[in-house]
């Protein structure tokens, strides 16, 4: 097989890794706050997810691009600066582009800056790899987070409101609790258990180690 083919596979592996094995929310249990806070409907979850994907990819890109110019001793402050810079940009863009969503999720967009997962990927991956794999890693991690948010917010909106993206689909009394704080915890807990169960059953075996 050609070298390019191998690289293709490893990029795919990076994305797969971010979505399944090291899924930020379900497996690593990082960045949990927005997973509950903004997932009471699909729309909020979607934009939050997009914001995280953008920040993760851009941070990985920036840091891997300048990794050879950063003195190791001051790397953490630089990382923080890069992250907060990108968060500020995304924050301002969101405020301008989707003000109704921003009203709900604004605080949490600002708090992306404190996401352990973003700093961790910058430190563990982007600062040690070249630009292309770092971007794919960013896409993988971001998408894993994005998918998790979509699953949770879909579940919560359907059961809690009987709607998808604000459009009613089920004509029954919904379980209002699911769009409220307590129900958010239940939803994430139950989905997490389901993900663990599925992961243990279908993905952990057959060559993919833990």
């Amino acid at each position, binding site marked *: 097989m050609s070298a390019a083919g191998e690289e293709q596979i490893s990029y795919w592996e990076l994305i797969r890794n971010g979505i399944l094995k090291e899924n930020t929310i379900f497996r690593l249990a990082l960045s949990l*706050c927005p997973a*509950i806070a903004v997932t009471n409907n699909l729309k909020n979850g979607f934009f939050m997810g997009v914001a995280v994907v953008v920040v993760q990819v851009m941070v990985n890109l920036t840091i891997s691009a300048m990794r050879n110019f950063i003195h190791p001793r001051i790397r953490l402050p630089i990382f923080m600066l890069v992250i907060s810079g990108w968060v500020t940009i995304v924050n301002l863009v969101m405020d301008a582009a989707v003000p109704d969503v921003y009203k709900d999720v604004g605080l949490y967009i600002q*708090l992306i800056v404190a996401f352990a997962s973003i700093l961790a990927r910058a430190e563990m991956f982007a600062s040690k790899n070249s630009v292309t794999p770092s971007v794919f890693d960013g896409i993988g991690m971001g998408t894993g987070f994005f998918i998790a948010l979509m699953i949770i917010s879909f579940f919560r909106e359907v059961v809690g409101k009987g709607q998808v993206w604000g459009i009613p689909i089920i004509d029954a009394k919904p379980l209002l609790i699911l769009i409220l704080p307590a129900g*958010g915890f*239940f939803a994430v*807990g*139950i989905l997490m258990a389901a993900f663990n169960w599925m992961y243990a059953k279908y993905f952990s075996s057959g060559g993919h180690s833990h």
Partner: protein
Amino acid sequence: MDFGKLFELVVSSSLVNNYVFTMFLGLCIFFGVTKKMETSIGMSITFTTVMMISAALSWIVYKFIMVPLNIEFLLIIVFIGIVAGLVQGSDTVMRKLAPDLYNKLGIYLALISTNCIILAVPLQSVGNKYNFIETIAFAFGSGLGFSLAMIIMASIREKLELADVPVPFRGLPMAFVITGLIALAFTGFSGLITL
């Protein structure tokens, strides 16, 4: 100074709008350190202190530097800088001046710098246009609420060590379910104070 208002602010930020149970902030730390009672007590003390100091500092910087210079849009960068600097600084100071205390609480300091509650407090206090004293009260209440949540959670999780929880739910999923149940109980506080 209106003490009634301050008291309401403390009650509101600790019980009614508890960061963990209604705002979902600080969950990483919340789930991370509540496996043992001792750690969560240590974390509570450290956290509340750092929270109050950083909120006060951020308020001063915001009011007297950022507003006059018209650089409010750099809020996030500046605040995270303050928090990181404060944690780093207190780490050094504590190690030098109070090594005993550092040995007890120092390990928690490292965890704090990337925590969202610490950052959320100044962000919210700026957003809600609190004055200096109100900011302190708000930070204190938030810290108190977070401490309360951590201690309750730790006591329940220690008890749950002895229980036979179904396998997929072991660990974090169960912690989420418990938090949900506590949040459900804390719903009773809603409407207690309407600010």
